[in-house]
């Protein structure tokens, strides 16, 4: 709760600081804010409370995911260096929007009431619409914003319709009460409830870009300025999945038969679409967009798994995925800003010109691909474990394994470009010290979690 308040306050402070001439102070200040938020967030560990008349619950689950999201934001901000250097007049607004949207994200992982879920989703989404279109003069940015906005608001309507139907069937927005209402307990099929449930699932699926409601994602990711794409791929996705997981488990755990087939279908489809779609993308950014769809699929597997292992699995996976994504998008941003190119060719010879960046990118690719020595491996291992533990979903694991192998196919292409292709005319990419630091921290974190996953693998 303190985190939400602090973030809101800091967002406003940031706006005011923006009026001052000196933009230099903005970044350190924002980082400082985030560090403070991260710290205060940890204070709530094992110290859960509910707020607003049972509308928000800050439990360990919320704290853990808030931690991931704040940390990720902390890592993302230093890549805005270019905006600072360019004396972009809107910088303070961007920072503030990010801080505000974090509030939405935290609400999504801490919601106890559908209203909070809805508000959180919208805070996050509306902020994203703005950020997607933040490059006003770029047609691509415009297009991304419009697509995101139109489809996003459409699915806001869908989401709401679902919530309303559930409200109609159960008479409550509170997830505990919904669960307690237990409308399917006596074996009756409450059409309104099921309809609402399915529509709700569809609505959230859109937000986390699960197939077949993923169509917006590749286009929007590609058009959005890379800095904000990173945010979308990490914070937004983490928040969405965490909320989804919480919703399904807390509110609809008992009505699993109603949503299980649909959920499995969505999971499978997401895995397939994400992995297959990424294979031939010529643009690294678009490839990463598809890859983020596929990771949504792996995350959804935890929802399908639905057992006592899935909590930790989703947490670990989210963390490893978020960190790896920051690294990959971060390097992509640095490289594409310098080389004005987002294709694989932009990475040619990076191993020669920027060994560090290339190494970071390699680690992140391996982590995303789930190869040992990186956190991604254990992420996948835990997710698969959770699914196997259900006992009857071995086929899903096999499918996921095959698709993971396909994933390696496209991730390794980046590595090949960096180390095995000649640099050609590509020159050294300048990297700010902040960004370097962040990349190193992320890399260390990824490898550390890849060697001793026990550090965080069972905190929930």
């Amino acid at each position, binding site marked *: 709760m303190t985190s939400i308040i602090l973030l809101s306050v800091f967002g406003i402070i940031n706006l005011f600081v923006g009026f001052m001439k000196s933009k230099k102070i903005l970044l350190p200040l924002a980082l400082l804010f985030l560090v403070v938020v991260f710290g205060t967030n940890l204070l709530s560990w094992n110290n859960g409370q509910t707020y607003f008349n049972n509308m928000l619950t800050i439990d360990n689950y919320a704290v853990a995911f808030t931690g991931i999201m704040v940390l990720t934001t902390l890592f993302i901000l230093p890549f805005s260096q270019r905006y600072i250097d360019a004396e972009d007049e809107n910088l303070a607004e961007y920072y503030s929007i990010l801080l505000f949207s974090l509030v939405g994200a935290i609400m999504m992982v801490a919601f106890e009431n559908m*209203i909070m879920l*809805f508000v959180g989703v919208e805070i996050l989404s509306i902020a994203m619409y703005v950020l997607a279109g933040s490059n006003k003069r770029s047609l691509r940015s*415009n297009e991304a914003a*419009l697509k995101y906005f139109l489809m996003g608001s459409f699915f806001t*309507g869908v989401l709401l319709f679902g919530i309303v139907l559930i*409200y109609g069937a159960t008479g409550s927005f509170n997830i505990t009460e919904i669960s307690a209402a237990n409308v399917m307990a006596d074996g009756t099929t409450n059409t309104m409830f099921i309809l609402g449930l399915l529509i709700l699932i569809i609505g959230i699926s859109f937000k986390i870009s699960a197939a077949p409601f993923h169509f917006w994602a*590749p*286009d929007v990711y590609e058009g959005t300025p890379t800095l904000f794409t990173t945010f979308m791929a990490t914070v937004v996705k983490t928040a969405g999945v965490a909320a989804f997981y919480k919703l399904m488990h807390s509110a609809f755990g008992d009505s699993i038969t109603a949503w299980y087939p649909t959920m499995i279908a969505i999971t499978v489809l997401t895995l397939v679409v994400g992995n297959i779609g990424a294979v031939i993308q010529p643009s690294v950014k678009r490839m990463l967009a598809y890859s983020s769809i596929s990771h949504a699929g792996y995350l959804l597997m935890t929802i399908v798994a639905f057992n006592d292992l899935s909590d930790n699995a989703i947490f670990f996976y989210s963390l490893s995925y978020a960190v790896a994504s920051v690294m990959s998008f971060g390097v992509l941003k640095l490289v594409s800003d310098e080389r004005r190119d987002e294709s694989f060719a932009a990475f040619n010879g990076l191993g020669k010109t920027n060994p560090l960046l290339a190494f970071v990118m390699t680690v992140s690719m391996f982590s995303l691909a789930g190869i040992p020595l990186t956190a991604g491996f254990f992420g996948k291992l835990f997710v698969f474990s959770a699914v196997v533990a259900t006992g009857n979903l071995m086929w899903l694991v096999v499918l996921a394994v095959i698709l993971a192998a396909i994933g390696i196919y496209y991730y390794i292409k980046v590595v090949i470009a960096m180390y095995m292709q000649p640099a050609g005319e590509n020159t050294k990419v300048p990297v700010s010290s902040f960004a370097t630091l962040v990349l190193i921290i992320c890399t260390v974190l990824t490898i550390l979690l890849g060697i001793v996953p026990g550090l965080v693998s069972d905190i929930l």
Partner: protein
Amino acid sequence: MNQIPDIIRQVPLEYYLFFSTALFAIGVIGVLTRRNAIVIFMCVELMLNAVNILLTALSAYRSDPNGQVFVFFIMAVAAAEVCVGLAIIVMIYRNIRSTDVQLLNHLKW
């Protein structure tokens, strides 16, 4: 004011349900068929209002204020969405002198 729920209850709940579902469907169809960004957005608003009506009705039927409270939230959020949405559309209009969504298909495949 206490009579309002009673007045609402004079119409069967199914009517509200069908009405708002129909309204919602009209909104969806509008989104599907229109090419003008503003009209599409209006249709989305139509969907939201369908939800609002249903919420209100359900709230009244159940004598539960939560539903109506939610309506306010929805309205507020919708307002915010309108701001942002219109701003985006205006921005695009400035760039391409049109609000036809079909024209914006540079990002694909």
